[in-house]
C-alpha cells in the first residue's frame, strides 16, 4: 500500500492545505471519509445551545456538598452529623453507614471507600455528604459536621514510601505492584558498551484543566437510578453506582451529557461524584446535582501520575543501541485507581520506538498520601517518553551525532523486534514520521540557523528538540477483556439515520467520525446521520472511552451495524431500481442501479419500511485476542501501533529564564484520517497540552494538599503561548490483517484508521525539554521548565555572565 502524506503546514499560515487524492483500493473510501467537512456538533457549541450538565433542570432538585478530611492521614474516631442535619434546607446527610451496597469506588482494586470509615488517607477523602435545597446551605452544613480524628504521620514521596519504617498508607505496605520487561541481558550490555548514558528524570503531576468541571445529576425512580453527567466512561459509572447502591446493573442507567473536555480526567473519576449524588438521591428520594467548582475540581480529581525514572542506555561508539535498564517509580497517591494500568503502559512504552536487544525494565506503583493519579492523555507514556527521548538526545550529544540521524539508525522497522519481544508486522511507519518531520521543519537549515543565532551570543538562545513515540493503539493486553465495542443504528422511514455508540464524544470529534463512518458505509450524506447522546440503555457495555480507541473500536462497530442495515435495505432498492442486488450502489444519499437509474435513499427507506424490513442493527466489534506474559513483560501488548515524530524550536531568554516554543512540527502515522480537520485539531491541541506540561504546569503540593488549585497559579497555555503547529499526516490506509509472515496481525480501525488523541501529546513534552536542553547546552531532566529552574541552570553554567551583545565567536 502506498503511503500518502498530507501536509497541513500551509494551514498554519492561514491557507488551505494541499489535498492529495488517495490511491483507490478495495478498502479505500469513496464517500465522505478522508474529505474536508465540518464537525456535526459545532453549531450548538458556538451559540451556547449545547446543554452541559450544569444546564439541566429537574423539579425538586437538591444540591450536594462534601465534608472532606482536613488531614492527609488520620484515624477517624467519630463522625457527628447532628448539627448538619439541623441546618434549615438540609434534606439528607450520608456517611458510610448509609451505603446500602458496598462502600467502595476503587475501579480496579477495592482499596477506596466512597466515604471514610476509620481511616483518612488524603485531604480529599470524604467523611460526610449533604444534600440541601441550595448549594450554599449544603456547603454550610458540610462545615458543621464534627469529626474526631487523630493525625497519623504521612508519606509524600515515593522513595521514602518504599523505605523501611515508612508510614503505611494501607495495611500490607506501600508497594502496590510491579511490572517488568526482561529480555536478553541488559546488565552485560551495559558492561560491554562503549558508552552508557544515565539520567534520572522527574515527570511531575499534571492537572487536566478541562474547562467544564466535573458534574453529575442523580435522578431516583422506583428502585432504579439514572445518572446524567459529564464523563468519558458511562459503563464505569454504571458499575460503580450499582455496586454502591446494591442494585443490578439493569436498574442503573447512565446518560452522558455534552462533555466539556476530559483528557482522561473523566475516565475513572466521575464515578466518585456520581456515587455521592446517587447515595444522596437514594436517601432523599429527590434528584441531586453535584457540580464541582474549579478549586474542588483541581483539589479532588485525579492527576497525571508523578513518575521518577532512572534510565541507563548502552550503545556502541557507532551509535548502535545495545541495551537499556530502566527503573520507574509511580506515585499512585492514596488509592490505586487506574495506577496499575497506567504503569503497565508506561512499562511497555519505556524503551521507545528503537531496536534495543537487551532490556530490563522495572516499574513499581507506590502508595503515598498525595493526590491520586489517574488517567491522563498518554496514560503513563508522556512520562517515560520524556526519559527515552532525553536519553537519545543525550547519547547523540555524547557521540557528536545528529539527533534525527541517531534515531534513524536505531529505528524499529517492519519485522523488527520491539522491546517486548514482538516482531512488528508492516506497516511500521516510524521512519516515515522521522522523514516527514525532518522535511516539514527544514531540519538541517533550521539547525544551522539555531547554531548561528547562539554563536552570535545575544540575550536569547535557541534550541531544537526531537520527540518520538510508538503508541500502542487501544487497550493493553492486560485490559483486553474490556475491548468489545457496540453501536446501534436505525434508519427511519424518511431516510434519516440515528446512531448510538457505547463510547463518548467529549470534544475530540467522535460524533463526527461516527457520522462519517455510518454515512460512508450506508451511502448517505453526513447530515442525514444524527448521533445520539451515549446512554447505557441503548448500547451494550463497550468498555471505556480511552486509549485513543473510539475511532477504531466504535468506528468498527458502527461500520458493522451499517453493513447489516445496508443488506436489510437492498431488497427495497432492487425492487425500486428493478435490478439485482449486486448492481445497486448506495452513495451520497442515492441508490443507483444500471443505466443511470437512481432513487433517493429516503425512498428506499420508505419502501423498506412498507415491506416490513427490520431497519435497525446492532453492531459489535472485538479485536483479535493478544497473547502477553505479564511476568516477563513479553508478548503482544497492543493490536496496532501509531508512530509519531515531533520537533520543537524553543527560545530561552537568558535574562528572565522564560522558555517559549516558537515553532512546532508534527508528523503522525494515523493509518487513515477519517476526518482530517479533526485529526489536525487533535494534534494541535495535544501538542499544546504537552508544551504546557513541559514549560508551565506545576502543581504545588504540600503535605498532600494542592496549594495552587486555580488558573492564576496553575498555568495552562494561553493563546499567547501557543505557537504555530505544522502537521504532516502519514496514511497507509490499510485495515490490516494477518500477513501470514510470522507476525501478529495489525488490527486497526475502519478504513485503516488509528487513534490520534494520545499520540498528539506523548512526544511533545520530550521535544520541548530536548529543545530547551539544546538551547542551554545542558540536560534538563525535571519538568516543568519554569523560569526558576532555567535561571538556576543558567547560573550553574555561567551563561548569565556572558554579555548580551558580543561579537560572533568562532
Amino acid at each position, binding site marked *: 500500500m502506498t503511503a500518502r502524506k498530507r501536509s497541513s503546514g500551509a*494551514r*498554519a499560515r*492561514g491557507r488551505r492545505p494541499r489535498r492529495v487524492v488517495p490511491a483507490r483500493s478495495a478498502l479505500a473510501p469513496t464517500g465522505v471519509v478522508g474529505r474536508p467537512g*465540518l*464537525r456535526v*456538533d*459545532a*453549531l*450548538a*457549541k*458556538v*451559540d*451556547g*445551545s*449545547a*446543554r452541559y450538565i*450544569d*444546564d439541566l433542570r429537574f423539579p425538586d432538585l437538591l*444540591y450536594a456538598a462534601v465534608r472532606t478530611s482536613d488531614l492527609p492521614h488520620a484515624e477517624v474516631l467519630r463522625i457527628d452529623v447532628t448539627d448538619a442535619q439541623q441546618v434549615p*434546607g438540609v434534606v439528607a446527610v450520608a456517611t458510610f453507614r448509609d451505603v446500602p451496597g458496598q462502600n467502595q469506588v476503587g475501579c480496579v482494586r477495592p482499596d477506596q471507600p466512597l466515604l471514610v470509615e476509620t481511616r483518612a488517607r488524603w485531604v480529599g477523602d470524604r467523611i460526610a455528604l449533604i444534600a440541601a435545597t*441550595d*448549594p*450554599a446551605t449544603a456547603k454550610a452544613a458540610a462545615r458543621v459536621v464534627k469529626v474526631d480524628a487523630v493525625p497519623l504521620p504521612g508519606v509524600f514521596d515515593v522513595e521514602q514510601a518504599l523505605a523501611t519504617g515508612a508510614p503505611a498508607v494501607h495495611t500490607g505496605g506501600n508497594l502496590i505492584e510491579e511490572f517488568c520487561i526482561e529480555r536478553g541481558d541488559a546488565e552485560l550490555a551495559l558492561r560491554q558498551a562503549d558508552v552508557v548514558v544515565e539520567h534520572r528524570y522527574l515527570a511531575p503531576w499534571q492537572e*487536566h*484543566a*478541562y*474547562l*467544564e*468541571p466535573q458534574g453529575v445529576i442523580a435522578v431516583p425512580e422506583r428502585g432504579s437510578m439514572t445518572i446524567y453527567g459529564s464523563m468519558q466512561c458511562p459503563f464505569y459509572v454504571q458499575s460503580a453506582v450499582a455496586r454502591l447502591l446494591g442494585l443490578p446493573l439493569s436498574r442503573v442507567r447512565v446518560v452522558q451529557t*455534552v*462533555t*466539556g*473536555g*476530559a*483528557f482522561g480526567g473523566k475516565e475513572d473519576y466521575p464515578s466518585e461524584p456520581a456515587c455521592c449524588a446517587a447515595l444522596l438521591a437514594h436517601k432523599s428520594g429527590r434528584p441531586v446535582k453535584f457540580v464541582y*467548582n*474549579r478549586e474542588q475540581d483541581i483539589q479532588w480529581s485525579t492527576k497525571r501520575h508523578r513518575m521518577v525514572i532512572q534510565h541507563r542506555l548502552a550503545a556502541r561508539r557507532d551509535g548502535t543501541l545495545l541495551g537499556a535498564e530502566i527503573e520507574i517509580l509511580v506515585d499512585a497517591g492514596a488509592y490505586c485507581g487506574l495506577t496499575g494500568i497506567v504503569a503497565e503502559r508506561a512499562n511497555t512504552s519505556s524503551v521507545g520506538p528503537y531496536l534495543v536487544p537487551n532490556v530490563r525494565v522495572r516499574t513499581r506503583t507506590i502508595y503515598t498520601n498525595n493526590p491520586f493519579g489517574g488517567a491522563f492523555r498518554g496514560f503513563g507514556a508522556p512520562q517515560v517518553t520524556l526519559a527515552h527521548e532525553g536519553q537519545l538526545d543525550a547519547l547523540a550529544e555524547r557521540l557528536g551525532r545528529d539527533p534525527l540521524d541517531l534515531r534513524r539508525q536505531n529505528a524499529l522497522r517492519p519485522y523488527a523486534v520491539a522491546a517486548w519481544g514482538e516482531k512488528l508486522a508492516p506497516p511500521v511507519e516510524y521512519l516515515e514520521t522521522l522523514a516527514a518531520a525532518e522535511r516539514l521543519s527544514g531540519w538541517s537549515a533550521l539547525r544551522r540557523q539555531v547554531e548561528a543565532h547562539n554563536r552570535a551570543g545575544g540575550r536569547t538562545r535557541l534550541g531544537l528538540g526531537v520527540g518520538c513515540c510508538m503508541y500502542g493503539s487501544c487497550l493493553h493486553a492486560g485490559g483486553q477483556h474490556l475491548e468489545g465495542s457496540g453501536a446501534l443504528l436505525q434508519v427511519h422511514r424518511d431516510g434519516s439515520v440515528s446512531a448510538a455508540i457505547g463510547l463518548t464524544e*467529549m*470534544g*475530540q*470529534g467522535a460524533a463526527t467520525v461516527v457520522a462519517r463512518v455510518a454515512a460512508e458505509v450506508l451511502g448517505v450524506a453526513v447530515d442525514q446521520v444524527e448521533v445520539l447522546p451515549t446512554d447505557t440503555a441503548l448500547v451494550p457495555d463497550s468498555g471505556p472511552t480511552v486509549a485513543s480507541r473510539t475511532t477504531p473500536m466504535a468506528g468498527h462497530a458502527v461500520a458493522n451495524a451499517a453493513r447489516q442495515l445496508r443488506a436489510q435495505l437492498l431488497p427495497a432498492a432492487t425492487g425500486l431500481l428493478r435490478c439485482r442486488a449486486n448492481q445497486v450502489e448506495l452513495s451520497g444519499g442515492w441508490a443507483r442501479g444500471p443505466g443511470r437509474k437512481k432513487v433517493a435513499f429516503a425512498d428506499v427507506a420508505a419502501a423498506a419500511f412498507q415491506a416490513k424490513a427490520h431497519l435497525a442493527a446492532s453492531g459489535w466489534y472485538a479485536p483479535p485476542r493478544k497473547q502477553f506474559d505479564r511476568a516477563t513483560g513479553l508478548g503482544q501488548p497492543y493490536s496496532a501501533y501509531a508512530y509519531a515524530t515531533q520537533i520543537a524550536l524553543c527560545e530561552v531568554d537568558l535574562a528572565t529564564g522564560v522558555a517559549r516554543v516558537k515553532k512546532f512540527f508534527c508528523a503522525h502515522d494515523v493509518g487513515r484520517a477519517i476526518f482530517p*480537520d*479533526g485529526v489536525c*485539531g487533535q494534534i*494541535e*491541541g*495535544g501538542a*499544546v*497540552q504537552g508544551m504546557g506540561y513541559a514549560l508551565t504546569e506545576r502543581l504545588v503540593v504540600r503535605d498532600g494538599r494542592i496549594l495552587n488549585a*486555580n*488558573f*492564576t497559579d496553575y498555568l*495552562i*497555555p*494561553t*493563546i*499567547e503561548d*501557543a505557537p*504555530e*503547529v505544522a502537521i504532516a499526516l502519514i496514511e497507509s490506509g490499510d485495515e490490516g490483517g494477518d500477513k501470514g509472515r510470522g507476525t501478529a496481525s495489525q488490527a486497526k480501525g475502519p478504513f485503516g484508521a488509528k487513534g490520534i488523541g494520545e499520540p498528539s501529546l506523548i512526544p511533545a513534552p520530550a521535544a520541548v525539554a530536548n529543545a530547551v536542553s539544546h538551547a542551554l547546552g545542558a540536560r534538563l531532566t525535571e519538568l516543568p521548565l519554569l523560569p526558576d529552574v532555567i535561571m538556576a541552570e543558567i547560573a550553574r553554567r555561567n551563561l548569565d555572565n556572558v554579555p548580551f551583545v558580543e561579537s560572533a565567536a568562532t
Partner: protein
Amino acid sequence: MAASEADLGRSPVALTINGRRTVLDAAPGERLLDALRRAGWLDIKESCGEGECGSCTVLLDGRAVCSCLLLAQSAEGADVVTAAATGHRVVGALRRAFVEEMGTQCGFCTPGMVLAAADLLTGDGDPDEAKIRRALAGNLCRCTGYHRILRAVQRAAAELREEVQP
C-alpha cells in the same frame, strides 16, 4: 452557584439582553453570571468562577467582561449580549467562522471566546495576529491549541470587512 440569601432582599434589575428588555430578579451579592443563568441564559458557562478563564464572558455595553466578577445589581440599565444573540452582525460572523474553521472542540469555552473576539472586532476591523492573541489571552481553551480559534477570528474579520466594502 446561587447564593443562599437568594430569596432575601431580591430587587429588580432592568437591562437589555440580546436586544430584549428584561427585568432580572437579583439578590444582593448575586453574581451577574448566576442571575443571567437563572433567567435561562444557559449559553453563558461557568468554569473557574474567579475571572481567570473567560468562559462566562458576556458583552456589557459592548465590552467583554467576566460575568462571574460582576454583581447582577451593577448591570442596571446595561446592554448585555451573549453568544446566543441573534441579529448581532459581529457575533453572527464569529459564530459562522468558528464553525467553518473548527475553532471549537468540547465547546465549553467557545461562547466566551466568541464574545471576547466580538469586543475586539467591534473596535478594530483588521487586527493583526498579535493583537488577536492579546485580546483573547484571558480566554482559556484546553482542547484546540488555539490555532483554529486564531484562524476563525481572522476569517470573521475578513468577512466583516467584505460586508462593509462590497
